[in-house]
């Protein structure tokens, strides 16, 4: 994949337009209603000073706090309520979809999650600084967003820069891809366009890529805050405060429009639609339960193991679904040695009544420079039922000969091909029953 990306980058640079490296989206198209969050932090501090939120495609609601270092949080209440309402509504419809502009914005939500959720547990002795229950709930919701984002194959939280980078490669140096505006320039440009690089650089110059105000706006806010401190007139302070809020709102609106533009450019490209709704359903029901019941963060081995099992299962399911629907992704896996093409050259079924059953098939595998086919490795026909474990593998002048012990799908085994093969789709994780049993054995229930 590394080589493919390098070649695509050269091509993109020559064309002055982003080049797709996959054939299909890895996330489903938007549900009817989406929700976007554009947070802005104070430069140099992990403190939020403004948030834009609402439906993409419409003007956002903007809430701001002119003096964010005061640790006042009441300005977040409308945002907290709107997010809660959206999630509660969306889990009952199809599935929720939350757009976030870039990784630093997600990071900021993660910080908010820890800060406000903890603030609800460890009350500040100063009642004026205690967050309202809505803000504590916002911390909880942000934690759910962060948790979902880490789930493999999840379809709910989309960090726009990351989503674009999973599908397209630009002609600029990779660190510049962290800037949503610059990325969008490359994505929106048609092949053969001129000056894409220059336009992208210009956008990166004016807007930071880190969910914060531009340097000029930040310095202006600082200077106005200084004036507020010195001012003795309430009216002047009010006017200056409005000036800061205007600057903050303007920055949010600029980032919001960048996100909208990126969203349109991303979904406007000619990739195939993603299928595979299973994980979405599971993510949605996971979220629905946690919206109804506040679930504490898992920290202990049993809960974490259960969660890891689920992640592992979803990762395998998601990967195999993508390989099955997208031949470009299959080729990437093939280059990395995780997939191959092979014909079935012989099928040997164990006669009825003979035990133990050991159905075997022989494969003639096409040559490829890199292959992970070893004894004990379990492989499956992409999108098919036939699963086998490698019993023998031998290099030949034109590729490999391999013998598989068939673990499943022997009825579908027939001489012919070529078929596409990849790692076995993982089995379902342990059920709750096993973990409950372990808890009871260990005296933890």
């Amino acid at each position: 994949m590394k080589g493919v990306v390098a070649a695509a980058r050269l091509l993109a640079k020559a064309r002055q337009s982003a080049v797709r490296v996959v054939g299909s989206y890895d996330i489903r198209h938007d549900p009817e209603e989406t929700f976007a969050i554009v947070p802005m932090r104070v430069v140099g501090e992990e403190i939020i000073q403004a948030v834009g939120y609402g439906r993409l495609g419409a003007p956002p609601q903007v809430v701001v706090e002119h003096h964010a270092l005061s640790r006042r949080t009441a300005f977040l209440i409308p945002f907290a309520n709107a997010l809660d309402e959206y999630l509660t509504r969306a889990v009952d419809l199809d599935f929720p979809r939350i757009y976030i502009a870039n990784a630093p914005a997600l990071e900021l939500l993660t910080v908010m999650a820890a800060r406000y959720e903890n603030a609800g547990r460890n009350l500040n002795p100063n009642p004026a600084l205690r967050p309202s229950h809505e803000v504590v709930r916002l911390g909880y919701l942000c934690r759910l967003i962060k948790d979902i984002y880490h789930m493999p194959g999840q379809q709910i939280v989309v960090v726009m820069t990351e989503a674009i980078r999973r599908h397209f490669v630009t002609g600029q140096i990779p660190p510049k891809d962290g800037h949503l505006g610059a990325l969008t320039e490359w994505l929106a440009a048609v092949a053969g366009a001129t000056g894409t690089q220059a336009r992208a650089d210009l956008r990166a110059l004016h807007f930071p890529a880190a969910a914060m105000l531009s340097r000029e706006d930040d310095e202006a806010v600082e200077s106005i805050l200084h004036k507020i401190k010195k001012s003795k007139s309430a009216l002047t302070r009010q006017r200056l405060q409005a000036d800061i809020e205007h600057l903050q709102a303007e920055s949010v609106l600029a980032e919001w429009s960048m996100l909208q533009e990126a969203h349109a450019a991303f979904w406007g490209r000619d990739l195939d639609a993603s299928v595979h709704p299973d994980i979405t359903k599971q993510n949605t029901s996971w979220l629905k339960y946690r919206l109804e019941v506040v679930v504490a963060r898992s920290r202990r081995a049993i809960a974490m193991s259960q969660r890891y099992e689920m992640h592992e299962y979803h990762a395998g399911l998601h990967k195999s679904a993508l390989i099955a629907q997208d031949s470009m992704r299959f080729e990437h896996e093939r280059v990395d040695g995780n997939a191959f093409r092979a014909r079935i050259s012989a099928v040997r079924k164990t006669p009825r009544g003979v035990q133990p059953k050991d159905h075997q098939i022989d494969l003639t595998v096409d040559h490829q420079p890199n292959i992970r086919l070893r004894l004990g490795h379990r492989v499956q026909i992409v999108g098919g039922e036939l699963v086998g474990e490698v019993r023998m593998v031998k290099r030949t002048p034109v590729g490999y000969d391999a013998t598989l012990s068939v673990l499943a799908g022997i009825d579908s085994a027939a001489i012919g091909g070529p078929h596409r093969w990849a790692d076995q789709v993982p089995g379902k994780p342990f059920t709750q029953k096993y973990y409950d049993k372990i808890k009871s054995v260990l005296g933890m229930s």
Partner: protein
Amino acid sequence: MQAFAKGDDRVLVDSPPGAGKTYLVEQTCARAVDDQRWRVGVGTNTRNQRDDFALRFKRRFPHIPLQVALASKETPSPALTAESVPAINNFNYLHNGAGVVVSTVHRHFYGVDYIPRGASGLYDLMVADEAYQIQYRNGGLPLDALGRRRLMVGDPGQISPFTELDAEIFESARDHILWSLPLEVMQNGSAVHRLAINSSRRLPPDTVRIIQPALYPNLRFSAASTDAERRIAFVAGGGQADVVDRALDTIASGASIVAIQLPDVGFELGVDDEICDLAVEVAERIRLRRAYWPHERMQIDINTDLFYMDSHVNSVTKAQEKFGSRSITLRADTPNVIQGQETLISIIKHPLSSMQEADPFHLDPGRLCVMLSRHKLACVVLVRGDISQVLGNYEHDAGQRLLGREDLAWRGYSAHQQIWNSLLLSGRVFV
């Protein structure tokens, strides 16, 4: 067994490479069954390890009841069938009474459902073989839930378990389910009786002198053999007198690890054809010069007594092709696959070969350790570029690791530096 008799219920045995871990586990199982009439569960990390253990145990202790618990639809491997090792697909068919049940730790998990009502476990003793390769999530829970007593045996220097998934949320939790089993057991405050084996049967003394201080600073061990016992001799002289011959002559003079260095090309090579060719050349030269092991009066066969190791699969595939084209059928693979195996001579591509900048993957101390600890007689390290320079230019990012997590990259960097310096200072790097 004495520790268990005294009432300890968790024992950890740290072992250097080639110290006889599996032998220790076999003996413990046999004693537990013969003397105590215990039912023993043995958990391995992989199915191959499970089958290897079962076959060895069956041959050594044919009188002890043994069962291999396979996955529900798995058929026994031909080797298990050939040696009539009883295999079960369902824990319903577990034999009653004393005996040994071998399975992967993951499969043992299903045994939880078969713990009799009111019993405190399924086994009197639960053993985790190669425990440092097992993640806590796979081994910790079955060990605690299934065994009334637990024995963990492993090599702390091997490649740590890894995950391809986003590990941040798991690493930042209170319990570290992705850590290796013994590390997490000790970290979470469980009482563990810790023992250590202090000698390696496999490694030559010269190798121990090089790798022990660098890779096992907390596990002092020596070699069970003498230098003379592990000396290689060559019947034919080195007619070509090139770097390969000089390296082999140095081996014959008693150095068990030598390095051959190719010039830097100024960029990182994913697949280094020249290194692959050199590996073939070294193997050919060992054959040509008719290497033998005087102490055992044994001729060395390059097809069966040599390993080739490289950190990358694509590079290994290329090497396999090159060996194949010269009708050499030695085992070539990545250290992740080869760990646990041993050979007489290993040829390895240095993990930092052709690297312009060192990174945590290539600095991993486990990978280096596996590569430098498979041989009984000698190891030839092939490298492109100046490792001293790569290590000298390395800028360590101390903030990269998560708080509380061991800084593996730094440990690897220190080990790399120590080992490479030791080779340089003793004149074993041939350019």
